[in-house]
């Protein structure tokens, strides 16, 4: 695992609660807002399980710590998106909180219903970008969630030891966290 230069993290009084919100004007229409919320909640909860940080969705986008939106091409942050595949999303290091996904992608929740060859798993990318929001940079471990590339029609949502060690070194461990609890939740989510 790796950190951003200077090892930035969210510095808050415990219990650390970070708020997040969706940009109502910059969402994709073919996945409902409720379903998108469910996917992101699952992605956030994977990080919540391992560190003493919790996430709460709020309505007020401008005041949220983490601000999520889907954008095409140029979108005002100097890092334009590039159409189908290529760059999928990006997020900014702490305590910036911006979290952008490329609206040109074919975002998918599963690959049974979505048959496109260029379908990209929304939950995998969400889980990866949340790692950036927390302060993790890219990992060179291919199995890790924080590895930079993700093949179309592939899913990678379960945090690996590399991801966990990295984020726990930044925030400490969730007192309820054990590796066996992690394996149990992996099994249940895979069955789901």
């Amino acid at each position: 695992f790796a950190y951003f230069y200077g090892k930035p993290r969210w510095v808050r009084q415990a219990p650390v609660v970070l708020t997040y919100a969706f940009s109502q004007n910059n969402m994709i229409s073919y996945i409902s807002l409720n379903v998108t919320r469910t996917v992101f909640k699952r992605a956030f909860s994977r990080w919540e399980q391992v560190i003493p940080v919790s996430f709460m969705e709020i309505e007020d986008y401008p005041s949220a710590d983490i601000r999520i939106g889907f954008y095409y091409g140029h979108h005002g942050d100097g890092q334009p998106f590039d159409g189908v595949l290529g760059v999928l999303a990006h997020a900014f290091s702490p305590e910036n909180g911006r979290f952008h996904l490329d609206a040109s992608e074919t975002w998918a929740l599963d690959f049974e219903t979505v048959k496109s060859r260029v379908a990209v798993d929304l939950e995998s990318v969400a889980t990866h970008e949340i790692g950036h929001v927390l302060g993790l940079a890219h990992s060179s471990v291919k199995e890790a969630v924080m590895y930079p590339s993700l093949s179309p029609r592939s899913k990678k949502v379960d945090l690996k030891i590399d991801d966990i060690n990295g984020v726990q070194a930044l925030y400490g461990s969730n007192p309820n966290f054990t590796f066996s609890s992690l394996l149990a939740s992996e099994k249940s989510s895979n069955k789901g």
Partner: protein
Amino acid sequence: RILPEYSSTVIAVDAHTTATWHGFTRFLDAGKGSQVSGMSELKKYFSRFGYLPIPDTNNFTDIFDKEFQSAVLAYQTNLGLPVTGELDSDTISTIVSPRCGVSDTKTHNATFHATKH
């Protein structure tokens, strides 16, 4: 086949590809000393993800030079690939694979400045 260091093997290629990054497959097996039309675009890719500083001239060349080889070596190390310094198939398939837009090295002017653990 050992190429003299500064001879250039010009590989005729079709420069028009539309899919994001898919066109980079044409640089397969290119190595130091080779010159391939459009390699400057691949160098922009490496620059975007933190492996190559933007030259003073603001223009990259199409020559696979020593500096670009260092960038390829750093990329291969960072992405957990075999470190060959060449655009082998593992490297090319990783380059064209969709990815996160965050730079692999958060300090642009250094080749490799994320703190690795």
